[in-house]
């Protein structure tokens, strides 16, 4: 362990004995059965990350096909019907199966480590959330491969997605994919909030939490209040299609704009749900690269919280073209511009942190610099389209496609790649190659700009979104070809990243515990972390948990090592409050998720899914709640100690 590692350093022999005991208690079975029954946040977090990245690649392949089709005018590679499915599945994948789950996954893996906990709160629910998410992803792609992929865009507007204009089951696949992913996201949010509130190591008061943890907390609250809107909207749509309700049917008093309001009340916060965790990642990377605490910590926290609040006040700017009252237009224009303030504050704080330091220009830091450039471009065009008159001109054109990709790829995916390079050593114990990483960064940065910058011009020239082809006379061919070359460049950069990962896993340089000299507790344990996370739960003495540790390195003592006993602390000051027993590995989350899957997939075809699935889910959750003999005896023992 390095000098800053979390260890009592009192007696190496005693530490070794403790390690053996904890390992015996917390180690999970290996092999396929062990994988299916795991409740370890690291195991679930890793598979979440890998699965979300696999969906990123699948979503990218959809995009690649679209770009190939648009590379030249009147191309015939992809027909209009398949093209509709491709852009719908691309957006649905990137938003619901990649971006939100990936950001949640990073929280599931790193929040417990950063707050000094042995596991996430509600470990079984965590596993359940993953399986439900996986079922949702498989459903979407089973739909696409059977020519039943969603066809009305990622925001699935009615009446296009309603029973009249979308017969068959395509929009039902969308609705239930959303249901699955929202269940998973809400579960992840509750776990992350409770882990942060109740599992922080003693001494880590709210004012000492790492900025990444703050970002995850704000995001989790946003998920809690935003996700029910789209889940309810998609349920209403599913009911309109299955049991003939009339929420979105104007002929019987329904309203198509109701969908837009419900969707965007979720949809705009969604952007920040993706973006805010990325801000947290940037802060951790900048801090490690400069070896300084981030300048203006309280302001940074307030900026994150302000972003979270303001994110809910902007949804109507997606609906300027629907005839919003003038006062509403003014309000939402002002709110849309106002959100640039907290983002700007954070950028200035990072600049101030870097200003007097000598940053190490490692790959994670390069991605941070790339993020600043790309996100500022996306932010500027965001302020432009916050103006109603400008928005009316470019609404539904490629200008919007350019803007949203600069924001999402620049604001979230770029820092995410930086985060991968930054935390890969912690997860695997090996460094990614710096040389390959620099190539990856250069190609990715170039590719994003080549792909999306020309789209601003295409939009201004009138090229609308979601068209499967265009005429040569429009003159859009050259810029589209350039965008397609850019997309190929991005694909090449991602392939290079995968090569880098494979190479490092096989023969990468061993990283050690804290290769970047990071300040947070995750860097204080070994790489990869042991099954129990920390040999000793640390007592936190300052905002930078590792940098502020005194030589005696105080720790928590008295937790049982023969069972999954964890510490519960108070919300504000993280004072030790009680001991809690976490469950051991179990197959119940998987069974409950399968019951949930059967319920919602059956509901695509028949309302009988409700009673049948309800009975299955009840059986699964009752079995889950009923303690088996082993866990009963263990809990009895803990309660009597």
């Amino acid at each position: 362990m390095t000098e800053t590692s979390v260890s009592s350093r009192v007696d190496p022999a005693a530490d070794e004995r403790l390690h053996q005991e904890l390992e015996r208690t917390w180690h999970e079975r290996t092999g396929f059965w062990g994988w299916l029954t795991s409740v370890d946040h690291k195991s679930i977090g890793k598979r979440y990350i890998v699965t979300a990245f696999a969906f990123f690649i699948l979503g990218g392949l959809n995009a690649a096909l679209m770009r190939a089709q648009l590379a030249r005018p009147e191309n015939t590679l992809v027909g209009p019907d398949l093209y509709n499915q491709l852009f719908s599945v691309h957006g649905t994948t990137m938003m619901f199966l990649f971006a939100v789950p990936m950001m949640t996954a990073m929280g599931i893996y790193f929040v417990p480590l950063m707050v000094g906990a042995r596991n996430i709160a509600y470990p079984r629910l965590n596993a359940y959330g993953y399986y439900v998410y996986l079922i949702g992803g498989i459903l979407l792609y089973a739909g696409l491969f059977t020519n039943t992929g969603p066809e009305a865009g990622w925001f699935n507007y009615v009446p296009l997605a309603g029973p009249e204009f979308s017969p068959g089951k395509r929009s039902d696949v969308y609705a239930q994919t959303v249901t699955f992913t929202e269940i998973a996201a809400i579960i992840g949010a509750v776990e992350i909030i409770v882990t942060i509130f109740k599992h922080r190591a003693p001494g880590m008061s709210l004012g000492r939490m790492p900025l990444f943890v703050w970002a995850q907390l704000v995001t989790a609250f946003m998920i809690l209040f935003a996700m029910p809107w789209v889940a309810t909207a998609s349920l209403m749509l599913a009911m309109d299609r299955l049991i003939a309700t009339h929420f979105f049917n104007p002929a019987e008093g329904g309203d198509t704009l109701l969908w837009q309001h419900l969707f965007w009340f979720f949809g705009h916060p969604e952007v920040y749900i993706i973006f805010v965790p990325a801000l947290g990642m940037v802060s951790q990377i900048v801090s490690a690269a400069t070896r300084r605490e981030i300048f203006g910590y309280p302001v940074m926290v307030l900026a994150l919280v302000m972003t979270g609040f303001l994110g809910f006040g902007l949804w109507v700017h997606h609906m300027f073209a629907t005839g919003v009252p003038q006062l509403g237009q003014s309000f939402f224009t002002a709110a849309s511009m106002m959100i640039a303030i907290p983002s700007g504050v954070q950028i200035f704080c990072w600049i101030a942190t870097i200003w007097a330091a000598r940053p190490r220009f490692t790959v994670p830091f390069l991605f941070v610099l790339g993020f600043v450039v790309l996100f500022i471009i996306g932010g500027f065009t965001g302020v432009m389209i916050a103006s109603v008159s400008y928005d009316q001109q470019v609404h539904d054109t490629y200008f919007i496609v350019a803007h949203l990709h600069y924001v999402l790829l620049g604001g979230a995916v770029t820092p995410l790649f930086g985060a991968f390079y930054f935390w890969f050593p912690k997860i695997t114990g090996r460094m990614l190659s710096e040389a390959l990483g620099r190539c990856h960064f250069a190609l990715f940065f170039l590719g994003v700009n080549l792909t999306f910058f020309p789209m601003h011009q295409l939009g201004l020239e009138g090229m609308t979104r979601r068209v499967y082809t265009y005429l040569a006379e429009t003159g859009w061919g050259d810029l589209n070809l350039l965008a397609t070359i850019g997309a190929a460049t991005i694909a090449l950069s991602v392939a290079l990243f995968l090569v880098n990962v494979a190479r490092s896993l096989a023969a990468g340089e061993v990283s050690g515990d804290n290769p970047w000299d990071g300040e947070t507790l995750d860097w204080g344990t070994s790489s990869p972390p042991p099954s129990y996370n920390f040999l000793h739960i640390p007592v936190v003495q300052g905002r930078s948990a590792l940098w502020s540790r005194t030589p005696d390195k105080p720790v928590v003592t008295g937790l049982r090592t023969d069972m999954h006993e964890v510490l519960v602390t108070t919300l504000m000051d993280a004072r030790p409050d009680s001991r809690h027993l976490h469950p051991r590995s179990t197959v119940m989350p998987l069974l409950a998720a399968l019951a949930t899957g059967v319920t919602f997939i059956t509901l695509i075809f028949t309302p009988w899914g409700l009673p049948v699935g309800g009975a299955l889910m009840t059986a699964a959750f009752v079995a889950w709640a009923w303690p088996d003999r082993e866990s009963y005896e263990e809990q009895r023992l803990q309660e009597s100690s």
Partner: protein
Amino acid sequence: MSTANVDVSSLPTTTFSHRSLAWWGTLGFMVVEGTTLFIAVVAYFYLSRNYQTWPPEHIVQPSLLWPTVQVVLLLASLVPTVLADRAAYRIDLVKLRQWLFVTLVFELASVAVRWQEFLSLNVRWDTNAYGSSAWTLVGFHTTLLLADVIETAVLIALLFSKRRLDRHYSDATDVTFYWYFLVATWIPIYVIVYLGPRFM
């Protein structure tokens, strides 16, 4: 500044209310479910703007008898719920079993009355947007009601079983906490769906 090691071996293993992890989970799901009910209310009022009258022409006002019975029943159910809650805090197993069982009887009665409440809407879910939004609002609450009945029944079974643990006292207070939430959310739904159309 140096700090001493922290010995936690004497901390309790069973805690109540905001000190318990399960309480926070319950609160989290209340927030989500409360938001969902709020969205259904938003949809109800949003769709009402599409009509001159609400309920729409030729649709009978909702009947008040059974929904009012339900409100009385739910308010009365608070008595055994509060008593069960207090018994759990006192770690009084006999009283807890007794009052939780009475709470379950009230819950089951509430489910039975709920069926009559659907019929009291005097409109089908597929008649028009009014019927869809009213049925959905009552339906969402019913889903939560059924979930709570199952949860209460399982907890009672655990309290009578050999697998009973100290933490089940804390779980019992979470079940009662959730029941308060269901009663509290039903009152505005009653006012909006059953009384509201008389004033709109």
